[in-house]
């Protein structure tokens, strides 16, 4: 409660505003205080005073399980974590030279990357508003570097546009806004929008279209030094006698439309895709390793959970050690279960029908990532491309250039495919060698002279075939969300589920962490009341 003596805290003030004006007023006030929209993270949970000897069993050492273990242990709980794989991190995962990727069906690759090189098969970029993740990175000393998202100099390829020749993003994007501005300004000038805009706004809009679209005095978007100032020059400005630049030729509206460049322009506007984005130096798995340094001694790796039971006293997990074959059981007062749903829904688990139905209601997506190690950084040296993505409508969907080691000599790993949906299934359905061949054939459109010549080796990760998850990320339908989500996140007796699937930030590490934190907060309340 608010004290008479001290000014209200922000939370107290917001509660007062909320009581007086309802949620909308509270939301508005939160926005005004710069406190809304960006994140639901309000700092790590403050779980003080665990009952002496109270224990929690955490299933899964991905980020949701690791954050749960870390925060519970900090509060004084006795924690044990069981992890199926021989490493912590779950989908927080990087593969390097010598690592094995084994698929359902037994297909196996050994990654051939040079020392220091890696592929992040799962998460690979971190939005600046994923404050929970950034908090723990800082706390554990995980060094972050920029992930180059929007690169104006990268390419856009559409099989049906420009005779299949990739175009620079900046040229298409500038031409797109130029042509659209020309059309809008001419419509405005012809009075065709007079019923929609006031006279005052019409003048401002005309000015805006002229400035933004780089239009000339006739409201035309034309080949000009003005347009070249954004889309680039035929001869770039230089020094001395021949220093004068020459303009580049703009593309026609028809050609620009055939490139569908608006799909990329729009992509970069997405809340989760906006700059600034980050990646951990040295590989995404630095985050899981950061947690593991704190809680590693509580984690039992290579341990397959076979059965999860509960009664009014506690939970019991039956497990098998995958190295020794030894069977065992672990008991605790409570359980935080982060096993991904395609596997969890097959577990012999003592929970009610509502949770069981929820676990079966969420399909997983079919991402594929391919890493291609190239002998040199030709994209930098020949094309002036430093990080960022070149997009294509072929199955590989994009190639993405490395954000680390710029200007260095020696081999570097490109993301040679990042596919989902139908393209993801198509690439998954291939053998590893077929996937690499498809990635080389399709990626060659961007760098035809260099792509195969500089290729050294490739790794492919097809998520539907990874035996420990059988898919990549949860994919809630609106219908399933309405019917099952609250049942999925609610405690069933002494068991709570956590993970990206138990969040509204599906497929992001932030969702895993916020879900894990929410589960341990509720667990702590329950345990404290017991």
């Amino acid at each position, binding site marked *: 409660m608010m004290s008479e003596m001290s000014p209200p805290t922000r939370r107290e003030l917001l509660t007062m505003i909320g009581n007086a004006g309802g949620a909308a007023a509270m939301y508005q006030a939160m926005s005004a205080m710069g406190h809304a929209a960006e994140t639901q993270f309000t700092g790590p949970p403050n779980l003080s005073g665990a009952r002496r000897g109270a224990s929690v069993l955490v299933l899964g050492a991905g980020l949701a399980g690791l954050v749960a273990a870390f925060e519970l242990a900090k509060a004084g709980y006795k924690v044990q974590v069981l992890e199926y794989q021989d490493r912590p991190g779950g989908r927080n995962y990087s593969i390097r030279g010598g690592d094995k990727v084994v698929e359902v069906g037994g297909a196996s690759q050994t990654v051939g990357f040079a020392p220091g090189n890696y592929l992040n098969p799962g998460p690979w970029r971190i939005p600046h508003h994923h404050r929970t993740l950034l908090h723990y990175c800082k706390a554990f000393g995980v060094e972050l570097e920029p992930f180059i998202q929007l690169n104006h100099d990268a390419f856009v390829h559409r099989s049906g546009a420009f005779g299949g020749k990739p175009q620079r993003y900046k040229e298409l994007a500038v031409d797109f806004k130029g042509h659209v501005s020309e059309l809008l300004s001419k419509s405005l000038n012809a009075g065709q929008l007079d019923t929609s805009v006031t006279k005052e706004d019409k003048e401002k809009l005309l000015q805006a279209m002229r400035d933004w679209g780089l239009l000339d005095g006739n409201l035309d978007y034309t080949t000009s030094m003005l347009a070249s100032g954004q889309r680039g020059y035929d001869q770039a400005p230089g020094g001395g006698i021949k220093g004068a630049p020459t303009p580049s030729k703009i593309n026609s509206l028809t050609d620009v439309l055939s490139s569908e460049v608006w799909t990329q322009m729009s992509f970069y506007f997405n809340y989760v895709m906006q700059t600034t984005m980050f990646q951990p130096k040295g590989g995404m798995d630095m985050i899981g390793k950061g947690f593991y340094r704190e809680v590693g001694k509580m984690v039992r790796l290579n341990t397959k959970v076979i059965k999860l039971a509960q009664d009014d006293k506690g939970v019991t997990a039956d497990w098998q050690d995958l190295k020794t074959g030894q069977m065992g059981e672990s008991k605790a007062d409570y359980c935080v279960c982060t096993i991904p749903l395609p596997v969890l*829904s*097959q577990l012999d688990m003592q929970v009610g029908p509502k949770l069981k139905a929820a676990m079966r209601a969420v399909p997983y997506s079919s991402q594929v990532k391919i890493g291609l190690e190239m002998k040199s950084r030709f994209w930098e040296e020949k094309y002036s491309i430093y990080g960022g993505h070149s997009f294509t409508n072929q199955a590989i969907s994009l190639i993405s250039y490395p954000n680390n080691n710029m200007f260095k000599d020696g081999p570097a790993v490109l993301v040679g495919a990042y596919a989902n949906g139908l393209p993801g299934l198509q690439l998954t359905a291939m053998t590893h060698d077929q996937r690499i061949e498809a990635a080389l054939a399709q990626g060659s459109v961007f760098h035809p002279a260099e792509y195969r010549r500089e290729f050294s080796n490739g790794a492919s990760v097809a998520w539907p075939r990874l035996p420990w998850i059988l898919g990549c990320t949860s994919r809630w339908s609106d219908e399933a969300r309405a019917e099952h989500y609250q049942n999925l996140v609610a405690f069933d007796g002494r068991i709570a589920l956590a993970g990206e699937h138990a969040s509204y930030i599906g497929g992001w590490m932030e969702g895993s962490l916020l879900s894990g934190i929410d589960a341990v907060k509720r667990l702590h309340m329950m345990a404290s009341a017991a």
Partner: protein
Amino acid sequence: MKPALVLTGAALFAAASGGANAQDAPGAGPGNVQVSDEGKEIFEQVCQACHMADAKGGGEPGARIPALANNPRLQEPNYGVIILLKGRGGMPWFTDLLTQAQMAAVLTYVRSHFNNYPDPITEADVKKLAVNPPPIPD
């Protein structure tokens, strides 16, 4: 009060992310990846990603991908149709990836080639069930 606030946040999130799906995505826009209209090829391009080339599924006990081959549940003609329309467990719905004709073609292939159920599934069968699909079979 609190639930209302949560809903507001969620609605804004969905709107700001430019679509229902705010997951990480390649962002390449519409692809030109075509799926064949022929049952066998649809199986090879799509279904075998998970169910494997021999349609026998795979994985370890406790983390299995179900077999389509010799699967008695496929005898019931509607069974496969409902699952393609609505998904089941980890398997997504295919309404946004395959046409109703393609669903019929691939089900006909799977039921006849990997099982002994030669009667075809027609596009009309799929269309009829798609209007108001029955619950997903357990």
